[in-house]
């Protein structure tokens, strides 16, 4: 693509550019325009945001078991290394192609390698006289004094810079803390909104209330959509390892087990269940405390949450 293109022509190519669907020479040509035109670059970011939403409709597949732990173990090992990759990345240029195709976002500027000082020339060999020694001593003392003053000045400057940086970091951390507090408040609001949304998305839902043996405020909601359901539990206490919570649906008068879970008192607990056709007509949903591993028969005395289909 050797001919000049207008901005409008380039804009027409941006959707394919964002999707990486242009031929290589076109990709390079468009990239050249984009990197030199803030308006085009902004448009690329907008289109890229829309394109990335396509990831949300890929068919759902359960995450690999222990993937999270594996990653976090690796991260912890990395953190314990004396010279971790984060330190390295300030001085080493790593390949960035995955990060920046097709758009060169965040491309680090190559850091110039500081030039090594030239090697000192070999000292001239000659015999020294006492006068030479005196002169040299005076020069050395004068130089020492200058160096001391210079050193003190540099030290003061460095300390000033260091204190300034600390102050900047402190201010930045204070701002971040404030932002985190604000984010937490927003997330708490969103948690409520999201649960309402979950209720809207579901075909039906059943509210479970705490029985007389449940902690105060314990509750749950069971959302059903087609052949799937999600139980959201709040306010149950953590159980010892010898016990578990078990979810039951009462179908034709018979409590049928639908999974066990452990509760965390300070956050919602989630249980996803598959609902066969035979379970669609359940009338009651219960949560009971059972021995670890769950039971085949519900222990009626330990039912902590119960809800009926209205």
């Amino acid at each position, binding site marked *: 693509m050797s001919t000049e293109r207008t901005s409008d022509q380039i804009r027409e190519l941006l*959707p394919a550019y964002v999707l990486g669907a242009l031929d290589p020479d076109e990709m390079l040509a468009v990239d050249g325009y984009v990197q030199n035109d803030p308006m085009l670059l902004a448009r690329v970011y907008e289109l890229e945001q829309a394109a990335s939403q396509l*990831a949300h409709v890929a068919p759902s597949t359960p995450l690999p078991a222990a*993937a999270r732990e594996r*990653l976090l173990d*690796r*991260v912890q090992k990395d953190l314990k290394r004396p010279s971790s990759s984060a330190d390295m990345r300030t001085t080493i240029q790593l390949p960035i192609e995955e990060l920046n195709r097709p758009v060169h976002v965040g491309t680090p500027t190559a850091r110039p390698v500081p030039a090594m000082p030239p090697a000192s020339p070999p000292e001239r060999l000659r015999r020294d006289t006492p006068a030479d020694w005196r002169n040299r001593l005076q020069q050395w003392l004068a130089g020492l004094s200058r160096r001391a003053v210079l050193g003190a000045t540099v030290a003061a400057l460095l300390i000033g810079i260091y204190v300034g940086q600390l102050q900047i970091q402190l201010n930045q951390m204070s701002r971040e803390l404030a932002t985190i507090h604000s984010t937490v408040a927003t997330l708490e609001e969103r*948690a409520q909104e999201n649960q309402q949304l979950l209720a809207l*998305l579901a075909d039906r839902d059943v509210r479970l209330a705490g029985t007389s043996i449940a902690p105060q405020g314990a509750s749950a909601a069971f959302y059903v959509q087609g052949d799937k359901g999600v139980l959201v539990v709040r306010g149950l206490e953590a159980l010892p390892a010898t016990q578990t919570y078990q979810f039951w649906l009462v179908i034709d008068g018979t409590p049928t087990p639908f999974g066990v879970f452990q509760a965390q008192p300070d956050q919602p607990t989630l249980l996803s269940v598959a609902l066969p056709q035979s379970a669609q007509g359940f009338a009651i949903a219960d949560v009971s405390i059972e021995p670890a591993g769950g039971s085949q028969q519900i222990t009626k005395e330990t039912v902590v949450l119960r809800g009926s289909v209205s």
Partner: protein
Amino acid sequence: MLLDMIARRDADALTALYDRHAQTIYNMINRIIREPAVAAEVHQDTFWQVWQKASEFHGAGAAAAWVYRIARNKSLDQLRRQKARPQVVATTLVEDEPGDFPPPADTASVEQISEQAWKRQRVRRALGDIPIEQRLCLELAYYEGMSQREIAERVNISLGTVKTRIRLGLEKLERILRADGLTAEDAAL
């Protein structure tokens, strides 16, 4: 914000990012690669790369889009290495499963699951409003990493038609999503 914290070696921030995006990213990787064992490795590599290179994100564009792009590019690289894939994609569209609950990860919170469900619904609605031929071209480019020329050959239509469909399709997807509430904050981390 999360990427800034990750760049400063905050493992909790990486965990938060993982919990929020791991499922969607894995779905996408698996959709592209279609070999779960390989997809699991690419998924792991993606988050490892985020951990190592978060400092290279300079705040331009959407942070989430940056993370998704790493995953997609890695997946497409892997796909290109798997030369012997059966070519069954010409008429394959992401299936419509309105309201499908994504399988929750053990660590997913109610908020994360409902957020994923809501985003999924929103994009499905948007795709449903796009002509199917445009949608097919978009999905071949996005999930298969095919160029416009390759799509033209695969679908047996002219290159010009593919170009038009890709352009109109993505622009329409963007318009619908924005009308449905997609904002820059959606793509923030």
